[in-house]
């Protein structure tokens, strides 16, 4: 990958001019969902150490608050941000103005409207109790169509690219665009439209839950990381010839790792055994990603620092999944807060931090202006890093305490609650820091995008022929 560094905020190309509104809409709505989801996650987190908190309110009773927070953060924040960034990257690397921008805009509108409708229904009527598929089926099917409409822009940018060769960012972005609708349809068919019988539902839900990460959100994360790192450092990626192997390893092995959560459960034992093998096989993917992107750790801009920490969380997540799949360890960590820590390491650590970095990199190029308040950028970066660290470490600590207590019948549930209380308080503090930081990011984003984009357009039209800098 031989891309040159281009860090000037006036680096506005035809991609930005044609796709500016839908792309900024995707990023803006992602940040709104991020703040709303953070608020719900904070409520659910506080309820773990103060069970009476808002318990009288059916809409925010603990189970529903968890389902609402998860849906808002995954389908609101991560999906919108990942899609917006991937489309922008596909457009830039394709070297042509973004086509089908109207499709992207309409799709984005419907995606967010369907999500809002689904979230309201969960709040009023209740969840489906299927992890990562908590929304009612009407909303889910609408979201698949909306996703397809958004995807049109990305697929056209990919098929209409100027150079036949493809960069790693493009493989990962295209993979995420195609795989999510297939994955979602296959899972919905067996979970909500014609539910499979008995524990088969849990197997399908496990396959889907893992797929959401390995076949959709992880590729979106890597698409952003593989773009921002070489662009920010100005260096080509080391060991780049291995990148295709890392890509195919993630796709072919990743979906099989989900069974580690079902080890010891009433499902065929081979599901767990294959998952353990897959968890170790896929370490190969993590090694390659680490080798390729190690330049990120050299430090630099705020964007690069965030991406490097996201990358660190990504690599650590792969290692933790492998270690906790082993029987001796999963005996303690299974069904505890440790699982939640692992999920947060992926969603809040790897994906969110990388997306923050990529947003800090992309928005000045979309608006043609630097961020409105650079002080808020520094503050948000600090809060995001501290909050994520506190959240993940505290949940892991709570999980280990809870796991060893659970396996000792002498410990009652009241004693377990007392043992984990301190950790859970720390986790809530982490959520609060994240919420405050993310609110600052939202304010900064609104201020940075609120004015018309004259400056950027003028610069783009006077300095650059369309599509020249991709």
């Amino acid at each position, binding site marked *: 990958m031989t891309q040159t560094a281009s860090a000037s905020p006036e680096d506005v190309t035809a991609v930005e001019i044609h796709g500016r509104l839908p792309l900024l809409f995707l990023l803006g709505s992602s940040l709104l969902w991020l703040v709303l989801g953070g608020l719900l996650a904070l409520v659910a987190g506080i309820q773990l150490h103060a069970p009476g908190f808002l318990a009288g309110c059916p809409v925010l009773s603990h189970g529903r608050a968890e389902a609402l927070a998860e849906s808002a953060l995954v389908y609101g924040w991560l999906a919108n941000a990942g899609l917006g960034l991937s489309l922008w990257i596909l457009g830039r690397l394709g070297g042509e103005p973004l086509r089908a921008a109207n499709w992207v805009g309409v799709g984005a509108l419907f995606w967010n409207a369907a999500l809002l409708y689904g979230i309201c229904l969960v709040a009023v009527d209740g969840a489906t109790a299927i992890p990562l598929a908590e929304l009612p089926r009407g909303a889910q099917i609408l979201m698949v169509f909306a996703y397809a409409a958004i995807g049109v822009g990305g697929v056209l940018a990919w098929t209409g690219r100027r150079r036949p060769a493809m960069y790693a960012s493009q493989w990962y972005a295209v993979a995420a665009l195609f795989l999510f609708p297939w994955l979602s349809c296959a899972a919905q068919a067996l979970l909500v439209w014609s539910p499979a019988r008995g524990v*088969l539902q849990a197997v399908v839900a496990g396959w889907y839950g893992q797929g959401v990460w390995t076949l959709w959100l992880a590729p979106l994360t890597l698409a952003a990381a593989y773009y921002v790192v070489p662009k920010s450092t100005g260096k080509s990626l080391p060991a780049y010839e291995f990148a295709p192997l890392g890509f195919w390893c993630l796709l072919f092995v990743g979906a099989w790792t989900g069974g580690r959560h079902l080890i010891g459960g*009433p499902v065929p034992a081979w599901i767990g055994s294959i998952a353990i093998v897959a968890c170790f096989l896929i370490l190969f993917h993590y090694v390659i990603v680490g080798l390729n992107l190690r330049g990120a750790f050299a430090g630099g801009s705020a964007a690069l620092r965030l991406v490097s920490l996201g990358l660190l969380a990504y690599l650590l997540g792969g290692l933790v999944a492998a270690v906790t799949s082993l029987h001796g360890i999963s005996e303690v960590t299974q069904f505890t807060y440790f699982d939640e820590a692992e999920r947060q390491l992926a969603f809040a650590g790897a994906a969110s931090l990388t997306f923050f970095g990529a947003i800090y990199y992309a928005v000045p190029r979309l608006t043609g202006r630097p961020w409105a308040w650079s002080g808020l950028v520094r503050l948000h970066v600090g809060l995001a890093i501290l909050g994520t660290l506190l959240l993940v470490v505290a949940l892991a600590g709570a999980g280990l305490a809870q796991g060893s207590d659970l396996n000792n019948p002498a410990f009652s549930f009241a004693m377990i609650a007392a043992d984990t209380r301190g950790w859970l308080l720390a986790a809530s503090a982490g959520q609060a820091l994240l919420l405050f930081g993310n609110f600052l990011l939202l304010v900064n984003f609104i201020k940075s995008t609120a004015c018309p984009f004259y400056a950027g357009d003028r610069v783009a039209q006077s300095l650059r022929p369309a599509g020249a800098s991709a």
Partner: protein
Amino acid sequence: MRNGAILFLGLFAALALSWAGIVVGSSDQLGRLAPYYDEGEGASFPAGFPGIAVRGEQVYRDLNCASCHTQQVRRAGYGNDEARGWGTRQSVARDYIFQPAAQLGAARIGPDLANLGQRKVDREGLLRLLYSGRGAMPAYAFLFEKERIQGQLSSHALDVSGVEPGWQVVATPRAEALVSYLLSLSSPYDYPEAKAAASAGEEKK
């Protein structure tokens, strides 16, 4: 990588392979599981769910109780579920064939509920627990109604403290259904596959 068609086919193959392996594979193994007929007892197991329990399962799902409770007993030697009194054997797939949506759960912030019906719990106690909560379990007071006593105290009135004189707390149909569902959770029968799994676990130890 230059060829878009290869990328596209590769993506499809990656998803289809994992789907075929995990979903179709386990469907092939579990899809035709039938109740087990015990000639000695002259009955088949597991028994079906009563209608009110099916409605209760819907309440369990609506409130996402599975975010804190599992319904699966792990085998002896893997965790300590039996010592906690959650069941006498590992849960097997056949236990769930009549459940509209198996609520295996993935977190044990509260106890496992797979065999709650076999434990020393009664309807009244469960309703009281739901109404007032205890320890880490929040109160679900919105599943109950406070009403003025008309003449005699209702036979369904809940015996809880802190209710003003002249008023009584009565469970809504949702709370009644939920408790019926919870009390119906019980898989006492020792299927052949459960025995085989238990002896395999013993050998490993």
